């Protein structure tokens, strides 16, 4: 069986599994990293949103064999460390989520937070701020309907992200 190696939340990991298994199942079923959630398996609900080399991606639609040894996969579990947070400290976007008490059932929220962080970084790369249109285009489904608080938290989290 092929060996799959990539960097997960800052540490290299190797898994014995076929190339065509999607990264979501490698994370959840083989590595026990359960922050990224299953909501559709076809990249429409975005519950599994994580980061690949700092950009948002959906592991349900990437074959593990397509990852390079140097590819850095970050899930919600590894998000605080990307800003140098130590111990129980959180990423500013997670803090904003706590302050606004965004979550209800919480199932979609890891994906929502990862999408929000990627959005802030993208608009920064484009040299601009977040617009209403940017928020409208976020596709992550929240079946509890926490959308209003998500919008407020993104703006708050963005202000706290340096």
């Amino acid at each position, binding site marked *: 069986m092929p060996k799959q190696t990539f960097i997960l939340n800052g540490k290299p990991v190797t898994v014995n599994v076929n190339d065509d298994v999607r*990264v979501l199942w490698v994370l959840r079923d083989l590595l026990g990293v359960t922050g990224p959630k299953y*909501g559709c398996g076809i990249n429409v609900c975005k519950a599994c949103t994580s980061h690949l080399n700092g950009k948002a991606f959906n592991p349900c639609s990437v074959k593990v064999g397509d990852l390079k040894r140097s590819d850095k996969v970050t899930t919600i579990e590894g998000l605080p460390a990307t800003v140098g947070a130590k111990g129980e400290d959180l990423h500013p976007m997670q803090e904003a*989520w706590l302050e606004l008490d965004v979550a209800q059932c919480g199932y979609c929220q890891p994906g929502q937070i990862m999408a929000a962080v990627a959005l802030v970084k*993208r608009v920064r790369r484009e040299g601009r701020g977040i617009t209403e249109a940017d928020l409208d285009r976020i*596709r992550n489904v929240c*079946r509890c309907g926490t959308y209003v608080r998500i919008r407020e938290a993104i703006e708050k989290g963005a202000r706290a992200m340096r």
Partner: protein
Amino acid sequence: MTALEHDQQEAPEGGLGRRGFLGWVMAGTTLVVAADLGLTRTAATAAIPSLPQVPEIYDLEDLQTDAALPTANLITVTIGTDGTASFALPRMEVGQGIVTSTAMILAEELDLPVEKVKVTLAPARPELLFNQLTGGSNTTFSTFTPIRVAAAVARRRLLDAAAIQLGTTVDRLTTTGGIVSDTLGNTVTYGDLATSAASQVVEAVQVLLKSKPDYQVIGKPRNRTDAREAVTGRKKFTTDLDVPGALPTMVCRPPEHQGSPKRVRNKARVLTMPGVTHVAMVDTGVAVRAKTFGQCIDAIRELEVDWNRGTVSGESDQTVLAKLKAQELPMVVPQVPVLAQQVDTRFEFMFRSSAALEPYAAIADVREDRAEVWAGLKAPIVAQGNIAAATGLRQDQVKVNVVTGGGSFGHKLFGDHAIEAAKISKAMGVPVKLMWHRVDEPRQGRLHPMATSRVRATMLAGQVLSFEQRHTSVTTDFSHGLGEMITSLADELPTGLGGLGFAETIFTLTQELPYNFGVVTQLLNEPLEFEDKFSTGSMRNIYSPDTCVAAELTIDLMAKKAGKDPMQFRLDHVKNKRVRAVLEKVKKEGSWGRTMPKGMAQGVALHKEYKGATAVLVEIDCRPQTVNRDLGKETYTGPRVTKAVIAVDCGLVINPRGVEAQMQGGFMDGLAMTLSASNHLRDGRFLEGSWDNYFYTRQWNVPPEGVEVHIVDPGSDTPGGVGEAAVGSSAAAVACAYARATGTLPTRFPINHGQVRFKPKSFVPSLPASPTNGLKKTY
């Protein structure tokens, strides 16, 4: 109105006596106290007028009788030596916030910081009978008193122990933050007292509950106790649990709704596929167990299965609608004067999927002589019984663990997932972690039934003489326990309900038109021909979102006929002060009547249920540039609600922040039901397959000017329900605004149902392949 006035008006049995209750100290190594979960009902039926003293409600006779009651059906609170209080809530947390509000209630009565209260979810406890069902927005209403009684018993017992330890008397002690202090400044913690306060025998204790003016925790906004777990990804849902040997399992399902497998043609070949360990046929389909869910999907796509037809083979939306129409009950218009005007309306409501974002999932480990199941279950006792029946075990051999759910909306009232997982585990002889694919949910999962609602109102010279509503629905499945609950309470139900079926009884118990409209009749008919044809259930409200839309749209037409403003017409006819208060609140906060551009309009609606009332005012934009805005593939945009203002009276508020969240979420559900979310039935199959077909709201549907929530305090000292309270009036307000903005009365909901806006996913194979182009879609 002051709290006192309110009490005098609405609670004649009020006064001190309502706070006196009986609880128990249980035998244990640390302090364990208990209360009867049936307390609320007992208190409510003890309609003894104004008795100010404890003994007059609970005298010695009562005490002796009650103390002899079997204690098995009690809920217990345990004080640990670490100073924490632990409580296993016999309800299910699905995001509605009851773990947080329950911790607050306990903390209040115990004088303990909320952080030191540990609330978990109780496994199925058959001895609780009907008292372990999470539904009907009833949790806080039904558990408020019993939980406080248990906490008060604990506090009283801790004080007794502290008095001995500090060499003083209880009346010289105070409690704050889990610490007991005497007048000299000596202190002792609850943790220190946990062992000495313990009892070796069970004894009955009388307690007086804290009164409302003394509340420190209840009524103050508090963030969810599980928020940190949620935002760090540490919160565990069923599929996140690591049960040894329980490998991923999925089911290849029939193309037709509720079809069944006949024969698997290539089982041996599929068993050789990567990761696959087992293939087994059960009544609902062909199950595959593998090392990863991805390999289950791949294997299911390869399976060749012969299928039996489904229960609605050949049926489509139109044929079901025609059958409903043929069964609509007649109106019985009372005799009205010749000059009376009539408003006649008829509305159709399509099937909707109640599935949450977490699909049905359950872990099952079924052995020869026992079974253990883990799942999100709102009626775990019923599931336990069903699992026992399905596996040939006795109910006491089945352990059912209740796992916090990733949403429910009525879906997890049913144990479909847990029962199916148990059957598969039994068939395979190994533990399984079953998960439904998203595609399985709208096609085979529980649906809110299709229904029609007719209304006829008669008016004379601006006066409303009668208002009749006839609701006709595909059978709603109540086999999750509500049905049995009704049977057991048959003797206690209000007169006039005798002889009604479950559905009609529930309809009658939930429908209340909050207006003075002369002779009002609201009736339900669920034709028998639909029984067991569709997999149904209620979706965040039972009948109310549909009946409310029909009624409120009709009221707008009545107002028009009377030459009145819709808001004023409602205010002129509201039945009581509480309803008026929420309506006036949205009128003011939402600036009712403000000028809007052509193609935009306001709408207002009102709903009364769950011991409270909710009014919603929205503004909608139906201009072409908005309706046709393009946000790319797999989106449905449509009319946009630009602003929503909600006023809710839900009685005593435990956690205002939780209420606000429930209102905002309930609003999004109402919005989806009116504008965009439905299932299409074609030739016995439901076309929708995933979130790119089933248009629940997304960010592009969120009102850009916000969803404002105003809590109107009625001065009540008992809580109402909030989980479903906003849905009906939100759905109706959006419908009313849409009708006013477009100048056309919508008659079928959701309004976009007429057009199928997607290419249906394949039925054979039953699951779509996961894409592989994710690296091209990073951002």
